[in-house]
């Protein structure tokens, strides 16, 4: 981070002013679009931010994650139009070969029609399914968007979610009418083109050297009996660029829906990524979240799912890899707000170098939520002496007839297993790779979508291969 005077002197409150000024500029750019119901929500959100600002370390839920580098940096809006010359070839590494569903690409926060599937007509086609950009959806199908957008993910006392909500401009909207079936997953690719600072001595925060920020916003509504899956990918084109992705996703699931959500996070090595996913599940829902985090300087995921009807079956799976100086914080919260629901949670982390990991898994069983069955497990593998994990299961149970359990383990690879593999001819490095990949593979194997599973297996293998190589002695 730069030692620039203006920046190092700045306090959180000054930063707040900076965002408020930025919001006023944003309002002017809306050219009269400030009368909409969405804009009332934007204003409510910026007011919340004005009041509470960024979370501090005294905030219990942010105690293990230092966001000072984000607060210090002057983030400017990412450019309006994608840099010329961005081609489909450049996107290829961020797609999933064999995946046939609709793909929407967002470059620096803006929908890029030319890079997206051609069949993404926004106006509802005969099946009634809508897949398109948020900006267009707000114009063309406001009746489907406005009842939900900004109404599920809370932003009071959530500084980052408040900013995302205040700056809602574009993102993705997916709507499944009652009983609809998506044949193939929808892929939403949020790509950053931010470049590395050319002169490392003049880091972000210096005049003319600010880092870009985007506020991707995703809303998914599945009506009763619908069935589908959506993949959200976040990635940076430049391996070590600095930028901030501040993303919020709301998923609203009607009764008896079956829905799978994938979040694949591959931001640039210098990037910050703060995201929240909020899921509301009605009676009889079957929901699975796969949250895979592969890179990025500072990553924070807040995942909240509200089991808001009887007989919900909700699963949260996660895998995070962190190396070098990376920091990954996964905060999950399962709200058992109805009786007879089941939740399963399985998170694994692989940490090397000086990486820090945080896992907080809250299970909140409300008083009405009798016969809740909740199981949570978190396992972490530390590949170096300097890597650290903080794992905090948090069970709050107010009903008396519940089955609730959690388990957390942290450790190194089993030396006896390494020896066993070596006696079968595998070198120590190969043995470490096999065992580490087996550890991570347990989460990847829960991914039912084969093109995603295959691509992630390659990416994880490559990432762990590089990690183990750098951890090897000599």
């Amino acid at each position, binding site marked *: 981070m730069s030692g620039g005077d203006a920046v190092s002197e700045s306090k959180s409150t000054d930063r707040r002013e900076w965002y408020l000024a930025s919001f006023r500029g944003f309002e002017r750019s809306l050219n009269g679009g400030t009368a909409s119901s969405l804009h009332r929500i934007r204003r409510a959100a910026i007011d919340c931010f004005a009041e509470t600002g960024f979370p501090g370390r005294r905030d219990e839920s942010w105690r293990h994650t230092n966001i000072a580098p984000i607060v210090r940096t002057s983030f400017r809006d990412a450019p309006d139009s994608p840099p010329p010359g961005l081609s489909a070839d450049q996107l290829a590494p961020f797609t999933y070969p064999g995946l046939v569903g609709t793909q929407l690409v967002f470059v620096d926060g803006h929908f890029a029609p030319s890079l997206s599937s051609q069949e993404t007509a926004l106006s509802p086609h005969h099946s009634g399914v809508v897949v398109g950009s948020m900006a267009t959806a707000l114009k063309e199908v406001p009746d489907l968007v406005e009842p939900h957008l900004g109404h599920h993910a809370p932003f009071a006392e959530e500084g980052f979610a408040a900013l995302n909500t205040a700056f809602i401009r574009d993102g993705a909207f997916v709507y499944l009418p009652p009983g609809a079936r998506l044949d193939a997953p929808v892929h939403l690719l949020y790509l950053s083109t931010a470049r590395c600072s050319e002169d490392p001595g003049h880091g972000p925060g210096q005049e003319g050297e600010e880092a870009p920020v985007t506020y991707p916003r995703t809303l998914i509504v599945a009506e009763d009996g619908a069935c589908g899956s959506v993949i959200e990918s976040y990635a940076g084109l430049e391996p070590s660029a600095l930028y901030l992705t501040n993303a919020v996703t709301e998923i609203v699931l009607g009764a008896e829906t079956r829905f799978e959500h994938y979040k694949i996070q591959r931001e640039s090595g210098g990037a910050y990524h703060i995201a929240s996913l909020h899921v509301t599940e009605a009676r009889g829902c079957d929901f699975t979240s796969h949250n895979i985090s592969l890179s990025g300087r500072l990553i924070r995921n807040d995942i909240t799912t509200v089991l808001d009807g009887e007989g919900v079956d909700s699963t949260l799976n996660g895998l995070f890899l962190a190396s070098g100086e990376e920091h990954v914080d996964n905060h999950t919260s399962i709200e058992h707000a109805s009786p007879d629901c089941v939740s399963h949670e399985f998170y694994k982390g692989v940490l090397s170098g000086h990486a820090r990991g945080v896992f907080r898994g809250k299970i909140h069983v409300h008083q009405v939520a009798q016969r809740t069955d909740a199981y949570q497990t978190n396992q972490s593998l530390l590949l170096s002496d300097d890597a650290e994990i903080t794992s905090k299961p948090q069970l709050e149970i107010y009903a008396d007839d519940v089955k609730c359990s959690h388990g957390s383990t942290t450790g190194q690879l089993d030396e006896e*297993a390494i020896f066993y593999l*070596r006696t079968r001819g595998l070198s120590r490095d190969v043995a470490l790779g096999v065992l580490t990949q087996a550890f991570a593979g347990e989460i990847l194997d829960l991914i039912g979508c084969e093109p995603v599973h295959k691509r992630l297996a390659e990416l994880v293998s490559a990432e762990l291969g590089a990690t183990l190589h750098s951890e090897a002695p000599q």
Partner: protein
Amino acid sequence: MLRVNNLHAEAEDTQILKGVDLEVNPGEIHAIMGPNGSGKSTLAQILAGHEAYTVTGGEATFEGRDLLDMAPEERARRGIFLAFQYPVEIPGVNTAYFLRTGLNEIRKDRGEDPMDAMDFLGLIREKLALVEMDESFLKRSVNEGFSGGEKKRHEILQLAVLEPRLAILDETDSGLDIDALKIVAKGVNSLHSPDKSTVVVTHYQRLLDYIVPDFVHVLMGGRIVKSGDKDLAHELEQRGYDWIARETATDSVADAVGV
């Protein structure tokens, strides 16, 4: 093939081997017997390269090369195989992948091409039949949830796939019922040939009814105190180990067995 000369070794500052001598030539089957805690398994693990033990004296060579200088994987590639007393469970690594990866590492070292999945399937089917294991094992994680007998048969399956020059079986008979014991013995015997050698480490004579040794050695107090032919094993079965301790009656042995 294998020469062990005056080998001393310790673990966590406890001297376990106190001068072991052993010579195994091609085609020979040796049995190493002895009471619990005599150092049998330690010797087996040291020959395979376990790092928990420190060699404090003596030497070991395999086909003329210094064995103690080699990493475990190098020993495996040169043809030494240890069948584990307690095979390790490895969740998430499927057995077929494990077997093929090991085989291909060894083939690579021999300058042979790696075996692809199809060719390997042909090979493994033949080997599975030898130890009467079902093909479904291939899809399971290595040793995970295997019964005691299945784990031991899986060790012999690995032996059959890797075809080492020297097989060391560490208490492969422990925990096996008589049927499983026969299957294991049949596997070992069918893999034996005039250019291969086998060292059977066991507490009981029972296995040696099926894998008949050319030489039997008694390891006590960290040394081989008596050697003989297969009749020695029968004698041990009838008389136990105490008489050897009295017969050899060296101080160190007497100390070790507490007589």
